[in-house]
């Protein structure tokens, strides 16, 4: 019996690897909730599992993904220049030095968000689909042009939310936009698959009744809860050093991100001696 389920799991894994490339937008509406941290962590974790992965910074004018990924000194060309045909895609893609299969497409620092056009973004994404299994789009904050460009072509969305009133309300606004302002909505296709990722969670404060619980946020937004990332000093430390949190073996937040990626891929998260937040809260 165990053998069969193992084989099924393997078959599923192979099927995953051969399935169509997926575009994932990391979005939130509100700024400072952890979109870039999440984009870097997710992309790195997917690449560590041997999925060819690229992560794109859509925050034109305020580029930061390169810093969090630790490749800021290797940026020569950027996303906007690729769109404008000022360089090739290959020239702009930065290969990660630590993880095989991981690439970064940095944002332009000198242009503004209007430099992104639907046509241009579509062309670059189509080219990336030929090389990568997962294309992670790190959205800028807000609900304007840049955010819409980042979400427009998405197949799935990670909605990064803090257990705090303004973030939860903004997440609901974003959920509304995913359902109306994206390619899948406009063309009446199967809707974008939405996943809630709760970050900066402090269980102690939830216990004391002064932070909204994961269950309550999930109930309010009524979308699939993918993971709960604990507030952790290691997140700041890893961004200080330009190391994605999922490369830190000793970080509780990194571990929670790995579990979220496992759930995203439809796997059972690994059993651990010390159960993660999500497991303790939701019992799996």
């Amino acid at each position: 019996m165990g053998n069969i389920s193992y084989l099924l799991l393997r078959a599923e894994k192979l099927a995953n690897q051969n399935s169509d490339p997926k575009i994932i937008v990391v979005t939130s509406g509100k700024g400072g909730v952890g979109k870039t941290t999440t984009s870097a962590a997710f992309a790195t974790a997917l690449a560590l599992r041997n999925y060819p992965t690229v992560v794109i910074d859509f925050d034109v004018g305020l580029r930061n993904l390169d810093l969090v990924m630790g490749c800021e000194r290797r940026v020569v060309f950027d996303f906007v220049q690729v769109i404008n045909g000022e360089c090739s895609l290959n020239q702009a893609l930065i290969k990660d030095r630590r993880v095989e299969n991981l690439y970064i497409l940095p944002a332009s620092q000198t242009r503004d968000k209007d430099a992104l056009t639907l046509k241009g973004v579509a062309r670059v994404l189509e080219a990336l689909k030929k090389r990568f299994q997962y294309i992670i789009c790190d959205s800028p904050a807000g609900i304007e042009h840049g955010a819409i460009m980042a979400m427009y072509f998405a197949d799935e969305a990670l909605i990064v939310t803090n257990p705090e009133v303004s973030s939860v309300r903004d997440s609901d606004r974003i959920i509304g936009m995913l359902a109306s302002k994206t390619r899948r909505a406009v063309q009446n296709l199967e809707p974008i698959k939405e996943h809630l990722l709760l970050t900066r969670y402090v269980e102690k404060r939830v216990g004391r009744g002064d932070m909204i619980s994961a269950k309550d946020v999930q109930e309010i937004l009524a979308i699939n809860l993918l993971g709960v990332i604990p507030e952790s000093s290691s997140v700041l430390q890893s961004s200080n050093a330009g190391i994605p949190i999922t490369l830190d073996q000793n970080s509780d937040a990194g571990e929670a991100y790995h579990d979220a990626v496992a759930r995203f891929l439809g796997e059972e998260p690994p059993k651990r001696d010390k159960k993660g937040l999500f497991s303790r809260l939701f019992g799996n």
Partner: protein
Amino acid sequence: MSLLNYFSTQPKSASIAKERLQIIVAHQRRERSSIMSDFLPDLQKELIEVVRKYIEIRDEDVNIRVEQAENYEVLEVNIALPDSSIVKIHTK
């Protein structure tokens, strides 16, 4: 001791947050789900133009509201007519 008592009788702030969010999110979602929300501003503009063909009214005299009931929506249009003495009837 009195301070402790004060805090223990107050509802926890997290439950206040939840309640407030449930109300605001429900409101946001009602607005989004209304089939009329997309064209309501245009409808209002055109209504004003049509009424103005016959009666002089100000923009703010036309009020449009969509009310949600269990499984239907009510479109409520309220046009306040000006004082009859200044009504100018156009005749064709």
